[in-house]
């Protein structure tokens, strides 16, 4: 009982070679990630995962919300929705690994910006509009700002970043704005 959880056999790792080449999470840390994943619901997730189970077994969103790294995140619901295959927040192990890979330190800026845009686009209309910003503000400040203050801030944000004057931020404008935010790379990351 003292041994580490055996997650992948060597053969499976070889089959799963894509890990090294498509994730930014180091291969050695995959064990840790899998341990975390399994801890959420040990009765559902097997100790040794077969290859196709990595993308078929789903964890309901209530389980992932309890993870320490995500519990306090105001955007957690939206993050799970974005990364899950079924767009409802239920993550498979592949989605989970994908998510942690995007949030790791080694992921390049472009990937982070892309996913940040999708996270902040709450209504999925491919634009970050005033409603999205308002929602983000409410989540960020836990409803402590008044409605006028929120409106003022939303106006200011749109004023700062909107280039083509349509009153909302497209992907290009969002990317342009985020490139000016040097903390983005350091805040938009989760350590495992």
């Amino acid at each position, binding site marked *: 009982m003292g041994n580490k959880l055996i997650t992948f056999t060597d053969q499976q790792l070889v089959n799963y070679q894509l890990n090294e080449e498509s994730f930014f999470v180091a291969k050695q840390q995959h064990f840790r990630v899998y341990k975390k994943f399994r801890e959420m619901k040990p009765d559902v997730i097997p100790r040794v995962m077969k290859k196709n189970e990595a*993308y078929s077994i789903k964890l309901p969103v209530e389980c992932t919300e309890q993870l320490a790294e995500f519990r*306090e995140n105001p955007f957690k619901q939206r993050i799970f929705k974005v990364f899950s295959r079924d767009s409802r927040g239920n993550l498979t192990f592949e989605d989970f690994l994908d998510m942690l890979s995007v949030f790791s330190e080694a992921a390049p800026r472009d990937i982070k910006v892309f996913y940040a845009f999708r996270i902040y686009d709450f209504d999925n209309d491919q634009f970050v509009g005033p409603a999205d910003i308002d929602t*983000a503000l409410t989540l960020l400040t836990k409803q402590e700002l008044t409605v006028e203050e929120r409106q003022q801030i939303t106006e200011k944000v749109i004023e700062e970043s909107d280039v083509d004057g349509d009153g909302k931020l497209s992907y290009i404008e969002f990317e342009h704005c985020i490139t000016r935010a040097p903390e983005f790379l350091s805040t938009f990351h989760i350590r495992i």
Partner: protein
Amino acid sequence: MSGGEKKKRATRSQGWEEAGSEFYQESYPGDGDMEVLWKDPKRLATLLPSKQTRAVGATIRLRTQDNRTNKSTVRRHTVNRSRRDSTVHRRTSTVGIDVGDDSMLPDLSQMRSNEETAWEEIMKLKELPIPMAKKKEEKAKIMSEEHLLLQGYEQFKWKRKKAWHQFTTRISESYQKMELWRRDLKHIEGHFGTGVVAFFRFVKWLFFLNLFTLVLVFLFVVLPTILLDDREINCDEENTCYEKYYCRINESNLALSIVQGTGRLESSLLFYGFYPNEIQSYTILNKKMYFNLPLAYILTTIVYFLVALVAIVKTGSKGFRERLIQGEGQFYQYSNLVFGGWDFCIHNEKSANIKHKAIFSELKALLEVERLKEERQGRTRQERWRIIFLRFIVNSIVLAILTLSGGAIYLVFNYSNQMLNKDNTAKILQFVYEFLPSMCIVALNITVPVIFQFLISYEHYSPLVQIRMALIRTVFLRLASLLVFYASMYAKIRCTSQFDPDDCAGCTGRTNCWETFVGQQIYKLLLTDFAIQISITFVVNFLRAFLARHIRNKFIAFIGEQTFDLPKHVLDVVYTQTLCWVGIFFAPLMSVMASLIFFVLFYVKKFACLVNCKPSGTVYRASRSTSMFMVVMLVSYPVALAPVALTMSEIPPSVSCGPFKSLTTIWTLVENTFLDTPSAVQSMVGFLTTPAFAIPVFILLILLLYYYTAVNSANRHMVTVLKNQLVLEGHDKKFLIDRLLLFIKQDHDKRSRLANHMVDGDTITNTSSLQS
């Protein structure tokens, strides 16, 4: 229906369509899709080339095709240049659109991918923002194609490249695992956010810098002395000045000498005085080799100062670049806060609450700044004059305080020296007088910033400017106290009369081994500073925090609650580092002390941060913090460099001890060594200092500076031009899409009308045939 499914996928990942060949064959989508298309114009936009080139398969193929030297690509370009003169000529789009045309020409472009290109494509897959499943599909697709096997030299090159890549990845992974203090950093990050972590990374960086200095000094100065020094000290007959000095060092109590740096410590390797001034010789394999210790001493000093400067500038330029970008967009404050404000690393409920509050207060602060700006516009002239007057008064008070502190340090130093020179003082009083200057400096460093903090509220600055002013003033205080300290020592060690090499003191009235004396003073200052920092953190502040946590009293809360004030801790650290830099010249083994101090300092600061402090309300930005640290380091670097440079060039070294005993100044050793180099080198260096060389170089540098300034301003102008153009392009695109939509709709209406008409015609003919 494949068309329908394709459109469903479009909703999920709009703009990231998979460009299959279907998109290139047809100019417009099929009939069945048109209904869907004109209902939602945005989907039409996915057909645009700008969206296509981002698609997975096309990008990879096109990118790697660009890399290969491809004759047919060139041919395609020349054909198309005439057609595409006016539009922006993007290579990828050209190649993409030509795939359709190319069906006429023989398929020379279908260059079979070899192993290397396939491997490169897979590497590039990693960076694309698509879900894992798609990446796996793509990889399978790439792997299933036939690849040419490379042979011979190509294969060797490629295999080497692949092995190197794997090697570097493995090294970086294992380095990440072994990273010093990783768990501590994560812990702090979870509680306090990334700005505070930047400070701890800074301490780690300094620790490694000091470690490097330690290795350097140890290898080239200390080790040769230990191994090769074979001087014999004859204390019965004191012939040389060195023996006279060495034998007269009184060995007092060991504990006292450790704390004060006198006694046994004074005559040890720790201080400058011990090192010999001869060229050491040793034999290896029956060959006599020489090691010039004095020269090594100078060179290690120069090297570690240079390395420190380069490290500071390099690290600072990284942050500075980001700061410049940010400065140009000072206009992104709100967006920055909303989109980059939440620290995703936080996983502690208390810290999360604090962070929420911090973001809230920062937003409120921004709104307040807006309000203040409006108010300032509305200020009357009288009020403006009043505020200027107040600021002037406060600044003069600050200057007065700084001068007073400087004077106080000078007086205390002289007084304690006076008292120490009297022989009939008690042992315990002697101890007090030894440490009086250091205690004075430390006391000033603690109390005066509090006074500054109190004064700054009268100046009505905006919060950001307030923080900066406070920082600048405290920096001045710390560095000024150091400078006065140097000045008071300088008064004691310089030569007032003519330098006399026969006199054991060098000049009349000087202590016998003044470098050791200076080293001792710095040693004591460092020790005092460190000891007081530890005692304040672990005793005073801990008690305060303990009381504030357990007793619910407003007064106790006022004095007990502390926040982790980043500027103050940064100054502590930088001040320690400055002292170490100066100290290492006068006491080489102080490098050991420095490394140890920084190692312990990390844990001391961690304790102060996690146990004593609550997370502060101000949101510290990581990038801005790092550049601030480097600026403070850069400001204090000259304060460390100046005394060493002065010592090396002006002050005659002491005659009775040290590696530079027989010289008029330390720099003459370098000059003499230079004169020993071959004449070619000498004449070349001589040429470099003549006006014939210096003036053209100077003019060239000024021209370069002017050129870069011009390029910089042109780039800025370009940025505004491009921004405007972007807006216009957006309008154009919108206009064109609307027109296209209109056209499709009209076409669709026409066709449906035609179809209906035919159906009507059929029924008419049918009925007519029925009737007939």
